[in-house]
């Protein structure tokens, strides 16, 4: 039964552009555009959830990896003439590498310092993006990033494929022994260690894979918009991710997907100005995080004793 539902959902997702064309032909371009964004942010949110939801590390560094990936793809394609797949692969690799290098000192910090440290790291990444003008053109942004496909439906299927890959990797990592180990580290670290699980290893694994995937999504994002600016790497992105993950259901695949659909599509459809959107998101996040039963945020708190 569940398989049937999943196949149906997947089918609808794949057929979406045609469905939209049939239902609302005049709006098709806009709606498919929103769907593309939704798919990309869903993939990004899943990569974030690996770190926050499954291994329980409150990282605020995700915008940095998103940015590294985006800039890598942008620079490689505009200046190096790299083909699409190559620069996306490069983006994933470089973002993962940066995550690994950053993770080494960061994971030596205690929980609180770790959160602050990742936030600081994200800020430093933004500073570099804004100031390393020779490479990133700073506030002038990198423009003219080539598009591998030109029609919107094609972009949608590209984004959907990426989401599908991320989804498979997410499932693979969060189930069976690997998933159990990660959850053990999240829920009761001393006990996990007594079980022979190296907490650092799994934290780094989630962090690096999550970061690498974020880089990949960043690369796609940059190619889609043809432009990438430092503003895309600010803490607003973290808030976006937190909202999607926490209000959707942290640590659960379905929750994150639902959250992504709700919190990417909805504001686009409502055509909120970015500032108002952030105000509303912030308030929502505030209210939900305060009022939620321990179950929702308890997942991140871990230490089930």
């Amino acid at each position, binding site marked *: 039964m569940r398989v049937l539902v999943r196949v149906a959902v997947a089918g609808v997702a794949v057929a979406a552009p045609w469905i939209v064309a049939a239902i609302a032909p005049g709006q098709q371009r806009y709606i498919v555009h929103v769907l593309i964004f939704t798919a990309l942010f869903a993939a990004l949110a899943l990569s974030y959830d690996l770190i926050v939801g499954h291994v329980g590390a409150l990282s605020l560094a995700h915008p940095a990896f998103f940015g590294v990936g985006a800039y890598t793809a942008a620079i490689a394609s505009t200046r190096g003439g790299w083909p699409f797949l190559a620069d996306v692969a490069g983006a994933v690799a470089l973002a993962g590498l940066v995550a690994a290098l950053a993770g080494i000192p960061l994971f*030596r910090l205690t929980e609180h310092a770790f959160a602050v440290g990742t936030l600081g790291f994200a*800020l430093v990444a933004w*500073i570099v993006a804004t100031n390393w003008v020779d490479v990133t053109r700073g506030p002038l942004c990198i423009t003219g990033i080539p598009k591998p496909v030109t029609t919107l439906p094609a972009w949608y299927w590209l984004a959907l494929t990426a989401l599908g890959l991320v989804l498979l990797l997410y499932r693979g990592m969060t189930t069976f022994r690997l998933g159990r180990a990660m959850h053990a580290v999240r829920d009761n670290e001393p006990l996990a260690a007594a079980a022979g699980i190296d907490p650092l290893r799994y934290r780094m694994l989630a962090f690096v894979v999550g970061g690498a995937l974020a880089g990949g999504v960043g690369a796609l994002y940059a190619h889609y918009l043809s432009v990438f600016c430092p503003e895309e790497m600010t803490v607003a992105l973290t808030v976006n991710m937190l909202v999607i993950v926490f209000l959707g259901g942290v640590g659960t695949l379905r929750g994150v997907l639902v959250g992504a659909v709700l919190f990417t599509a909805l504001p686009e459809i409502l055509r909120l100005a970015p500032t108002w959107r952030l105000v509303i998101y912030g308030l929502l996040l505030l209210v939900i995080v305060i009022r939620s039963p321990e179950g929702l945020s308890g997942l991140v708190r871990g230490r089930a004793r």
Partner: protein
Amino acid sequence: MLADVLEQLVHGLTLGSMYAMVAAGLALMLGVARLINFAHGEFFMLGAYAFWYGYRELGLPYPLAGVLAVALMVVWGVVYQRTVIRAILPRSWHVQLIATLATSIVLTNLAIIVFGTQPKEVPTALSSTILDVGGFRLVWQRLLVLAGALAIFWGLHRFVSRTRAGRAMRAMSQNREACAVVGVDVQHVAMITFALSAALAAAAATLVSPLFNIFPDMGTGLTLKAFAAVVTGGFGYVNGAIAASFLIGITEALAGSYLSYAYKDAFAFIIMIGVLLWRPQGLFGRRLGI
């Protein structure tokens, strides 16, 4: 050459004073109420706008505008404490972090909506007057900042060590459960601590605003640097936070001037990571067991 270095040193002390006042408030909240407040920088930002409003729009004299800013921030601090903080105080620090981060975003964007993104300037008499001693140039306002900071820290020290409220705060920072048992009104002390840290940030804003521009985003970076200072100094230790703040301020000024101006904001975190890798408990923190 020497004049340059001295100027940068003074600049560093100014920055350090600003960071220290903000970080002290943050450390207080952490030490006394175990609260992580990511919206702390917004006390500074809103305080700066309040000061601007009083000084520029209402035409109040400098000290009065400062008092207005501090008073408004204390009021806001109490409101914030009674609404958001009270709800998140008993919760895990993850909840606190996310809730206060959300608050910060809301406040920043509301400020953009209300005040616009154009930076505001509040030049005062002292910020426009320069003392020139044989090539060494000093803006008077900077001396005011330093003097003001020292006066405030002295006042803070007296408050914490002499008054009943201060004693309660110190007791709470050491053993919260015992305090509740002995009859200390934990919420009340938390509120006072909160008002105090809001006042500190507003005072800093009043002293420093004439030197820098005021813009809605200024709180975010400040919060982070304040946290960097708090973490570097040893979580919850006010003196540690103050010392670390001056370290950060001076490094920023000197390194920003002689190494790289564009990346000056990164130094705070480089220092933090460096110190923590060497001493995970921070400069003055104590290493505990399991």
